[in-house]
């Protein structure tokens, strides 16, 4: 019980510290850009179509721009440098010599990354819905708010692996993982796509937007018909497995003094 309490305390400590590190003018400016980007695109499309966006078309655009693009970029920036940042700043030694410090680094950075990117994603969603002039904005915000959270939880855990396996090349490795796992394996109509976040996101989108009967038969192959709770549970299981793997790997990693600072 004490060990669990200690892990929770240190995880919160890392999360708080990482969030404080993100509160620099440069990072906040980048987040503001991330929030504005979907709104600008939706506004431009709305101007081009001379009128409010058709709801389903707007939803597809919002899906591509917010839970996919904005969340992916936000997580790449915040989760990938989890270990590399500590090595570069010379703070790795402080983390590695504390009881459970390595675990706390993975979990705390994951938490900070999810909180930060979810906030940016929700901001982008609100601005996008307003800029697109969409009908029934409340419903859309509820649907896409859920998708933003699922996307952040699942993909932050996915990027935790390259962050601990290849800290110095985590960004490149994570982009590779995103392309190969999420956008290649995720679109294969085979068992392999069950282990991807993108399948769960598409399935939740189809379910929540009530598109099941309206999408073409070919597209149904890349959507899972299971109920919402199965999709959410799958993401939770996937995130737990990925984070556990990342913790096990980081617990065994050694960085020679020459790799620090």
């Amino acid at each position, binding site marked *: 019980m004490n060990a669990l309490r200690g892990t929770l305390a240190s995880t919160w400590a890392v999360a708080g510290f990482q969030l404080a590190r993100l509160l620099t003018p440069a990072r906040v400016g980048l987040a503001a850009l991330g929030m504005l980007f979907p709104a600008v695109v939706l506004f431009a499309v709305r101007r081009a179509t001379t009128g409010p966006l058709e709801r389903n078309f707007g939803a597809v655009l919002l899906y591509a721009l917010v839970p996919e693009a904005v969340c992916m970029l936000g997580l790449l920036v915040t989760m990938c440098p989890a270990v590399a940042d500590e090595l570069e700043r010379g703070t790795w030694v402080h983390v590695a010599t504390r*009881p459970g410090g390595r675990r706390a680094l993975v979990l705390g950075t994951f938490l900070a990354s999810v909180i930060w990117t979810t906030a940016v994603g929700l901001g982008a969603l609100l601005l996008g819905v307003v800029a697109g002039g969409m009908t029934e904005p409340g419903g859309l915000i509820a649907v896409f708010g859920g998708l933003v959270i699922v996307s952040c939880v699942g993909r932050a855990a996915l990027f935790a692996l390259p962050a601990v396996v290849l800290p110095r090349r985590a960004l490149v490795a994570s982009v590779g993982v995103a392309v190969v796992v999420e956008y290649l394996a995720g679109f294969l109509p085979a068992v392999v796509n069950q282990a991807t976040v993108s399948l769960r996101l598409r399935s939740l989108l189809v379910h929540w937007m009530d598109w099941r009967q309206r999408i073409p038969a070919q597209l149904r192959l890349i959507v899972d018909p299971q109920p919402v709770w199965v999709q959410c549970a799958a993401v939770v299981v996937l995130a737990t497995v990925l984070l556990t793997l990342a913790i096990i790997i980081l617990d065994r990693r050694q960085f020679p003094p020459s790799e620090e600072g």
Partner: protein
Amino acid sequence: MLTFTRVTKLYGTVIGVNDVTVALGPGAHGLLGPNGAGKTTFIGLVTGQLRPSVGRVEVFGKPPFGNDRVLRRLGFCPASDITERRASPLQWVRYLVRLSGFTAADAAERAARTLEQVGLGEAARRPLGTLSKGMRQRAKLAGAIAHEPDLLVLDEPFDGLDPVARHDLVGLVRTWAQSRSLLVASHLLHEVEALNAGLAVILGGRLVASGSAEEIRGLIDDMPKEIRVRCDDPRRLARRFVGAASCSSLRVEGECEVVVSTRSPESIADLVAAAVADGLVVDAVMPADRSLEGLFARLVRLHRGIAP
């Protein structure tokens, strides 16, 4: 408290420490060696950052790598400066204490108390980037001791400090060492001596000597010392030295310096005084200050079984 049994640490083909066997009991210990000798690797093995390639490291009877129980009893102050320049000492120390598993309230109380203890009470809320190096060293020390570890490990704690800051920090560390155990890595003998610590000398990844400061100092005192004399006619002075029995070796450097090696510095002082009386103009007489390098070289020869 700390045992190394035939420990070797390899980084690929590079050796960090080489077949080290040593047992250090509770108390204060200094790890002495020049830059690149393997001190940081030794410390990395003690503090659970590194795992030995061969052999066994035990701290409080258990291997420290990945062992939360051992790490909970360790405090580590690394050689590198704190890079979190926007955070205040209070935030930084509180963060480190919370990383040790303390609640937020406990951590805040311990951080404030320890910063007072190291004399940073008034500067506790200023950004670290605005503090002097000496103050940041104190903040680093506070971070290492705020959770009250049983063994404090310091890696080059006095590097880059001015004499006043160094004196203050030595006082703080010495006070700590009165009640708990301490391991200090340094390349300067007098720093470790100031802490009244036992010594282990490491060189080329090997432990080449261990003992009390007096024993190590004795080795230095036995060795010839180099004295550098700056004067207007070094060759004339060198001729005087050549005839003296106390002079082991000498060399003329440039147009105005003689470096003489002797076991009896007093006799060299007498010879220089006599030369001055004969009209030689002497600008400076100073130690060449290579005693520690000389000591290390001598220890290596002893270690390899070659007569020094």
